[in-house]
């Protein structure tokens, strides 16, 4: 067992964990942050994507012990009961989710992606989405929502 100190969505967390505990299970079972979803558990579906130190990673391919000292942000950091963020609102307007299972991972990946690629082409957005399996929407409304989001000014995106 190993003690880890980290911040999760701005909150300081100190927990003792088994080395084999995945970050996804740590977030869901220890912290009750069930917005991070568990799909394939081998890095393919993207549902578990979260930010670690501002960078999007697969929560299922990271051990909780490896996040010692890190800042972790999950989908709950966006709008936890409050008004939707600009990206979430774009998803709502475009009906970019049906069952919503893939949505948290896509939101977190997009936030990181646009930091490094502020004005992505449609093709680049589609390529990003290749790492996120959605079985409901057929992707067209997801692409439309992200295209809409990146058309916003930088200040509009953080609204």
């Amino acid at each position: 067992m190993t003690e880890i100190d980290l911040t999760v969505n701005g909150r300081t967390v100190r927990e003792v964990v088994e080395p084999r505990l995945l970050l996804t299970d740590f977030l869901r079972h220890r912290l009750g942050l069930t917005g991070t979803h568990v799909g394939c558990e081998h890095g393919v579906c993207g549902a578990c994507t979260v930010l670690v130190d501002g960078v999007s990673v697969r929560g299922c391919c990271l051990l909780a012990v490896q996040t010692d000292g890190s800042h972790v942000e999950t989908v709950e950091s966006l709008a936890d009961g409050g008004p939707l963020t600009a990206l979430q609102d774009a998803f709502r307007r475009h009906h970019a989710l049906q069952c919503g299972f893939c949505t948290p991972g896509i939101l977190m990946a997009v936030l990181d992606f646009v930091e490094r690629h502020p004005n992505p082409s449609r093709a680049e957005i589609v390529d990003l989405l290749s790492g996120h399996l959605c079985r409901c929407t057929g992707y067209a409304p997801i692409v439309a929502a992200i295209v809409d989001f990146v058309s916003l000014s930088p200040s509009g995106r953080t609204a």
Partner: protein
Amino acid sequence: MKPPAFDYVRAESLAEALAVLAEGGPDAKPIAGGQSLVPALNLRLVRPSLLVDLNRAGLDGVSADGMLRVGATTRQAALDGDDRVHPLVRSALPFVGHFVTRNRGTVGGSIAHADGAAELPLCLVALDGVVVVDGPDGRREIPGADFFVTHFSTTLRPGELVVETVWPFGQAEEACAFEELALRAGDFAQAMVAVVLGRDGSGAVQSAGVTVGAVTDRPTRLTEVEGLLLGSSGTEAAADAGALAARAVDPPGTVHASARYLRELTGTLVRRAIERAS
């Protein structure tokens, strides 16, 4: 599924990592980005007794001293947009997993894992790159061509770690192209090809590198195809080179593609890559 139980040590230096690995014996494994290892743990395909975490062992970073030296735990994403990185590697990088996995996956990890369908090992062999390893017998350099043995198997000795890979810079008189077919973007390659052509003043090919992967168990130079290109313009020999490449490989058929399809695919990708590098 969930990983089996293992012990965990976070190494704070290369020396500590090597010492802990030596103490841990054959069931101790290093972990870098974990984008192949953690899925394998989750599926219980591997059951190490001890994981030695290299992420804070000071093995990351890119430097240049006539060659490009890429620390083992440098994230694949860190090569994105770095102008010093060889154009072949930059064109292959978008095919390495997905945006999110490249954020965590490391260059050295991909090399050490030696998946026959991985792009970075293919590029390393195509560019005559070098793998620097350290271990109980000290530091040594292994040419990429001598590093890969077969699927998931390298000439790394017990207790050794990849600490750095060394890559040439792109040259003005050289043209290169990378081609890959996967069923979906980010999936493992069905076939992939790297072509590097050097030309003389008249435009004739005077050095040729044609390397294939995924249809072979490790990155493989097709020397007969390379010979065919010498002295040509490249484009004029592309069709014949593709046909020769299709005969030169002998992939097993898979659930997705027959052996005959994969041979023809290899030929097509070789032809396209030569045309693009011309």
